[in-house]
């Protein structure tokens, strides 16, 4: 028998000045199943809560409704109170008669009171259908996975490992290092990127708690916070890692040629290669697309094989195949980084067809001492030193028409850095920078920008470039100086476009694999823009670095550290509490059609086989089953289920129907 107690809060005058609380209490007193109904000044105060506890005892209440503020405010307060009174905390409902009533209907006291009564009745109708629910527990696998081996991933892994937890770094290319390894110098200190990165790479590779899984892809993520089962595809390297000594003989002898991605295709690399000399692991892979042997095999032949012949360790293994394995983790850090915008969508910049119009990352390789030009700044077309360089900022950034609406945050600084590098390397070269705004919020950033202009004599022109076209060997850059209000035309030898930072092209797919959100641009969505910047909406999955949005190295490293702390906090627990407001499927009603499996965003539903007696026989059939640890309680399955076998605890069909009916009863 339901015995409901109703407690109407005045919230001082917040509710009481508009809603006639005494009348609400009185009306509810006569409502079915209500055995006790009172109003009080402040229900959330200690005396208010005591009122509930005493009433539960005195009136033998088994359900409680509090009409006060938003449940988003005080639901937990009153649940705790009800629990202290000896009831299950879920035998409680709240009617929001403040935010949804008194505050928004000032001066309409009569209507607001009628509405408060409706809301209270709905809460009573619902609470009568409430069931006792208990929080569950799930164990924690004390090991983390970091997806992506750039600076974000390396830093997060080191921080987790240094706290004593096992962590794996999953990297899709043959080496860790990421974009930072491609960069020449870092702003604003102009220290060598590789010099500060490589020690961290070495530390990660030699750390006893860190395992590197390179040249591997994330295939599937199943499970839930504390218990992820991750399927990994380790791509065939065609080199036996246990035998290879990394001597590099194979690379020098290989006759195959391919575009060198690490050097932005500015030169060729062999088909058996490490991406760069300091690669970790420093053992090569065969790029089967450009390997003569593998290419010839497609035509039914089998040629070359030089690398195997020259390898002193016998490490070359042409027959190696992709390996798929499943690992278990308690937490996952996504650190998949960014990609560079392709400026070839811009007609005014020549649709990418002029060889001397290059991107910022191209320039990093051009100016790098270990790059294709040995650090000599030359034009890609004729390898001559440029005498005039024009840089264009916001290429693809802040341009919803052709690119992205957001600011890529790093371009102002890296353009300034590149300008100073040009002036350092080629003191006679003139550098112009076209900009929309100069954004330099960061420690030492604005000072750096000022030095770029004042000490390095880089000329900043505020305005957009309207056209770049080839004029003989040179490029004509036309634009507007919007401060002087006149057109500008510069005869340049080379143009560097500060291309925007964009998500990896498969970011959306990756987000779907791990089950996290992504925004319209493809950046992974954090749980809260301010208060949950490294968390995602999926418990146990965290974000580090530019996969969440454009970021420079200092911010990336800071965020990686933050993500690592969250991971350590999670891994330090032996058990996790789970919310009981999850979906449940009644196997007796379930027909096993499996449509709910597809709509569940958490992969919490699976089909399992049960045995049943039917017509004198034991038969086995499939029914859907919810893993309560995975289910987050959205309810998508409940609507998909035609036979109502799926129901959501605390928001059951019966509860919602009771609320609807209670509301409508007062019509007429």
């Amino acid at each position, binding site marked *: 028998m339901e015995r409901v107690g109703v407690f109407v809060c005045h919230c001082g005058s917040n509710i009481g000045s508009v809603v006639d609380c005494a009348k609400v209490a009185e009306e509810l007193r006569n409502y079915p199943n209500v055995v006790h109904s009172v109003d009080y000044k402040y229900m959330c105060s200690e005396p208010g809560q005591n009122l509930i506890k005493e009433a539960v005892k005195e009136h033998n209440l088994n359900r409680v409704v509090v009409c006060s503020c938003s449940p988003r405010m005080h639901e937990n307060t009153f649940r705790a109170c009800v629990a202290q009174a000896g009831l299950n905390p879920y035998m409680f409902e709240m009617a929001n008669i403040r935010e949804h009533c008194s505050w928004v209907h000032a001066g309409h006291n009569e209507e607001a009171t009628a509405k408060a009564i409706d809301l209270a009745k709905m809460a009573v109708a619902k609470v009568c259908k409430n069931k006792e629910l208990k929080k569950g527990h799930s164990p924690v696998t004390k090991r983390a996975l970091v997806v992506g081996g750039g600076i974000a991933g390396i830093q997060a892994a080191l921080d987790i490992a240094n706290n004593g937890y096992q962590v794996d770094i999953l990297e899709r290319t043959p080496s860790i290092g990421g974009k930072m390894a491609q960069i020449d110098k870092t702003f604003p200190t102009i220290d060598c990127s590789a010099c500060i990165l490589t020690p961290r790479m070495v530390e990660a590779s030699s750390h006893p708690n860190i395992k590197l899984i390179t040249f591997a892809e994330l295939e599937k993520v199943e499970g839930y916070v504390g218990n992820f089962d991750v399927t990994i595809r380790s791509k065939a390297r065609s080199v036996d890692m246990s035998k290879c000594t990394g001597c590099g003989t194979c690379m020098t002898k290989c006759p195959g040629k391919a575009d060198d991605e690490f050097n932005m295709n500015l030169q060729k690399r062999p088909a058996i290669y490490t991406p760069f000399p300091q690669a970790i692991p420093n053992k090569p892979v065969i790029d089967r697309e450009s390997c003569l042997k593998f290419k010839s095999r497609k035509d039914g032949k089998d040629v070359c094989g030089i690398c195997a012949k020259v390898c002193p360790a016998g490490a070359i293994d042409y027959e190696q195949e992709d390996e798929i394995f499943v690992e278990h983790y308690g937490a996952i850090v996504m650190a998949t980084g960014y990609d560079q915008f392709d400026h070839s969508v811009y007609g005014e910049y020549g649709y990418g067809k002029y060889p001397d119009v290059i991107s910022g990352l191209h320039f990093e390789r051009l100016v790098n001492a270990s790059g294709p030009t040995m650090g000599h700044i030359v034009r890609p077309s004729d390898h001559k030193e440029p005498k005039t360089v024009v840089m264009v900022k916001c290429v693809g950034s802040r341009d919803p028409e052709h690119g992205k609406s957001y600011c890529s945050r790093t371009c102002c600084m890296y353009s300034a850095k590149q300008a100073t590098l040009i002036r350092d390397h080629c003191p006679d070269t003139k550098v112009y920078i076209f900009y929309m705004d100069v954004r330099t919020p960061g420690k030492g950033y604005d000072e750096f920008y000022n030095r770029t202009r004042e000490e390095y004599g880089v000329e900043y022109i505020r305005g957009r470039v309207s056209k770049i076209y080839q004029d003989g060997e040179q490029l004509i850059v036309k634009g507007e100086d919007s401060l002087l209000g006149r057109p500008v035309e510069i005869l340049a030898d080379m143009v560097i476009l500060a291309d925007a930072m964009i998500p990896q092209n498969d970011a959306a797919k990756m987000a779907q694999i791990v089950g996290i959100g992504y925004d319209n641009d493809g950046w992974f969505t954090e749980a809260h823009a301010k208060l949950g910047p490294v968390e995602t909406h999926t418990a146990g999955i965290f974000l580090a670095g530019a996969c969440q949005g454009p970021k420079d190295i200092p911010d990336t490293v800071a965020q990686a550290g933050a993500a690592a702390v969250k991971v350590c906090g999670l891994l330090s627990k032996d058990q996790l509490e789970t919310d009981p407001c999850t979906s449940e499927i009644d196997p*007796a*009603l*379930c*027909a*096993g*059609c*499996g*449509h709910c499996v*597809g*709509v569940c965003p958490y992969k919490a539903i699976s*089909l399992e086989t049960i045995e049943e007696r*039917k*017509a004198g*026989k034991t*038969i086995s059939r*499939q029914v859907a089953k919810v893993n309560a640890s995975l289910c987050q309680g959205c309810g998508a399955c409940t609507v*998909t289920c*035609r*036979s*109502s*076998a799926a129901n959501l605890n605390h928001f059951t*069909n*019966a509860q919602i*129907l*009771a609320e609807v009916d209670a509301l409508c009863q007062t019509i007429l």
Partner: protein
Amino acid sequence: MLEMQQEMRKVAKELLESGEATVVIGWEKGALPYQTSPVLIRSAEETEKLVWDEYCQQNLSNYLIDFVYSDEKVAIFAKGCDTRAFNRLVQDKRIKAEQFTVIGVPCPGMKDRKQAAKGVADVPLAKACQECRYPNPVYANRTLGQPVTPRATAPDYSDVEAIEAMSADEKAKFWQEQYSKCIRCYACRNVCPACNCTNCIFDQSKSGWQSKDINASENQFYGITRAFHVAGRCIECGQCDMVCPSDVPIMLMNKKAKKDLDQLFGQYDAGLETESLIPLGRYDVNDPEEFM
């Protein structure tokens, strides 16, 4: 048709004699000329009962559900719509395709037995058959005869559009009138290959979804709910219309759902295959946006 009937009998006989099947599901002649009913044939002699005439409209695939836990080897004759129903049941995991032998029969279209019962002289094809775009089996282990030309190439929504053109009040009156006739016998549900739940919510008396009251409002709750449940899953066989004793135009609801789903999310003809997700079981981030 007689030729096909001979062929069907021959095939059934072979299957039973070879032991490839222990039961064959087909059609037999009923008491009246326009009555043809489903039949289970278990012996070679009985195969003479099998008929193939212009009243074989009943969709046989639903009978397979009864054999899921049986040891019998079942073969079934299937028109285009029966095979779509078969796929429907496979997709809903109610049956496993490999358990059954499906013998496809291209269908020239079946006559409207309700018209025939009224004594109409020149009995037209059933409405669903007139509008049929898939008269040939879309799945079969073997198919008899030659494929026929579909009687329609695109769905005919003129009847739906006629309703859509009405005012809100006219629509409400029309449907209230129609559903006031409904006696909630659930024949439409029972015959429907898409209504294949083991426990229908309308049989769950304690579910709270619906009272036992029979009135226009409750009947419409049933009608709308059923249309929503089969939306994107209906294989357009028109059996519901054919079995309704009160002549409620049930397909008119189902066709509306299909028209809108196709228009909103791209054309999807249910039961052509078993791999894709149903329209309401998937989404596209670029779906039409009307709710901003």
